[in-house]
């Protein structure tokens, strides 16, 4: 029992300490940042937060941009993945297995390597530097996992259900919309959250597509702050930026922990 508690403490510390250190740094004055372990008279300050929130553009702008991209990508992904997953669940065993294998390969693919070609495509059709256009690659990149997750939810539903609906005279769209979607709502919820997290956290494509500093997403903004100078000492503003950037995610994890866990593990158990 004692040993178990110690291990749990260790796990919690390991997960939280790096982040706690950021919070601590973000509220420290420049002097106390330089000497974190010695006694200081005026140790705490809000100056770091004031600095990044009054910068041009203010920091909340990046959070807003990321939220916008996240929501549109999630909506597009679910809109396209749901019918595809349904169709896949009705396909012949052999075909559906082949397709699932291909989707798994696409999900495993290190997508970072696609950045150059995607940038060329974006420039060719003139959608670089457009915040909403980012949702297209984001939806495409989340598509394999989304289809696999939703497909396993559809496959779990009993066939009789749909047969009964057909007897009642419901068309394909009506069946999907009014019978099946309500039943797989939990799977849609967890898929949505995982897609949203992916778009919120995505970096290489956002980095190469968007150069207008008013349109960059949170991750790119953080990287720009990091890139401005590697050894510059007043680190307080960086820390404040990472704390503000992390808060929405901490809220998401606290609110949707169940959906995230089921989304991540569904694929593992059934796949």
């Amino acid at each position, binding site marked *: 029992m004692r040993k*178990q508690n110690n291990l749990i403490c260790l*796990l919690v510390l*390991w*997960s*939280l300490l*790096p*982040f706690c*250190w*950021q919070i601590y740094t973000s509220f420290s004055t420049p002097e106390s940042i*330089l*000497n974190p*372990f010695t006694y200081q008279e005026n140790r705490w300050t809000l100056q770091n937060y004031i600095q990044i929130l009054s910068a041009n553009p203010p920091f909340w702008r990046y959070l807003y941009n990321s939220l916008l991209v996240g929501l549109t990508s999630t909506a597009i992904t679910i809109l*396209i993945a749901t*019918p*595809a997953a*349904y*169709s896949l669940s*009705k396909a*012949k065993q052999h075909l559906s297995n082949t397709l699932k294998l291909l989707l798994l390969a*696409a999900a*495993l693919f*290190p997508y*970072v*390597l696609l950045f*150059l*070609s*995607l940038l*060329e*495509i974006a420039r060719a059709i003139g959608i670089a530097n457009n915040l909403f256009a980012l949702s*297209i690659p984001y*939806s*495409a990149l989340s*598509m394999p996992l989304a289809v696999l997750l939703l497909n396993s939810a559809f496959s779990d539903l009993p066939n009789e259900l749909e047969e009964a609906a057909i007897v009642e005279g419901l068309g394909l769209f009506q069946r999907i919309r009014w019978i099946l979607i309500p039943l797989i709502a939990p799977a849609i919820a967890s898929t949505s959250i995982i897609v949203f*997290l992916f778009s*919120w*956290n995505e*970096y*290489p494509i956002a980095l*190469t597509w968007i150069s207008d500093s008013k349109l960059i997403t*949170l991750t*790119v903004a*953080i*990287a720009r702050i*990091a*890139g401005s100078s*590697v050894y510059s000492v007043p*680190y307080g503003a960086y820390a404040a930026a*990472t704390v503000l*950037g*992390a808060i929405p995610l901490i809220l998401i*994890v*606290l609110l949707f*922990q169940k959906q*995230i*866990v089921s989304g*991540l*593990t569904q694929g*593992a*158990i059934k*796949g």
Partner: protein
Amino acid sequence: MYPILLLPALILLFGVFGIPIVRYIWLSFHTSSVLTDLLPIPNNGANWIRLFSDSRFWQDAIQTFRFAISSVILEILIAISIAILLNQTFKNRGIVRTITLLPWALPTTIMALSWRWIFNTPYGPIEQILTLFHLNSINILSSPKIAWFATVIADVWKTTPFIALIILAGLQTIPEDLYEAFKLEGGNEFSAFQKITLPLLQPYIFLGLLFRFAQAFGVFDLIQIMTGGGPASTTESLSLYAYLNALRYLDFGYSSTIIIATFILMIIFSLFTWILIRQTKSLLSIR
């Protein structure tokens, strides 16, 4: 089956996965750089010849492999321990599980910046603690010998929760009766772990391994922000090298060559790892 419903998804996937790969292969046989105003001009495989004698590419390949293997092995080991811990009953299990998940949910850019600050010399906490005890500075991120391991630690911190969750899901599928029956037969806890837990967890461990290895092999955000590839490009990954070639040196042709070469290496390494796992499995005689 209604193929029409599948069509939008397939078109999107083809546009984002299919076209780029074909384009890369094609570009890798062309010069497309500032010298040609980024217009592709065929060059009879000059990029590929250059790649084979490019020592920086091979150094990065070794570094990427070293990074991927070390982080994935550490992650699997830690994740198994975490999963076993979280599978037990204790007070506040839900909260602990949520906290464990946090590092995974944070954007890589944010946590890479945090870890860069932790390893900072001389103001980061690690260096400060060393100074407190009057020990010599170890200059973590600027020493070519250990900087790469610092990036491994940061990667392990971030991605272990993901594997732990998958393995935890696997643990929960193992019926409790199996362990009880095993105990009645006189088996101890360790041999129960070896004979029941590990073999039944195998598919989950394998899935986590495969998924993480592919991701770690493409590592980009973490390295770019934590070290920028330095010191002396000892932490530079292949994807970072491809990125630098494309957007800093503006050589799209050579960048594409590196990207295709990275695909090929990744497939070779994955097969190699797979064979290695099978070999070790037969050595440990775990079915």
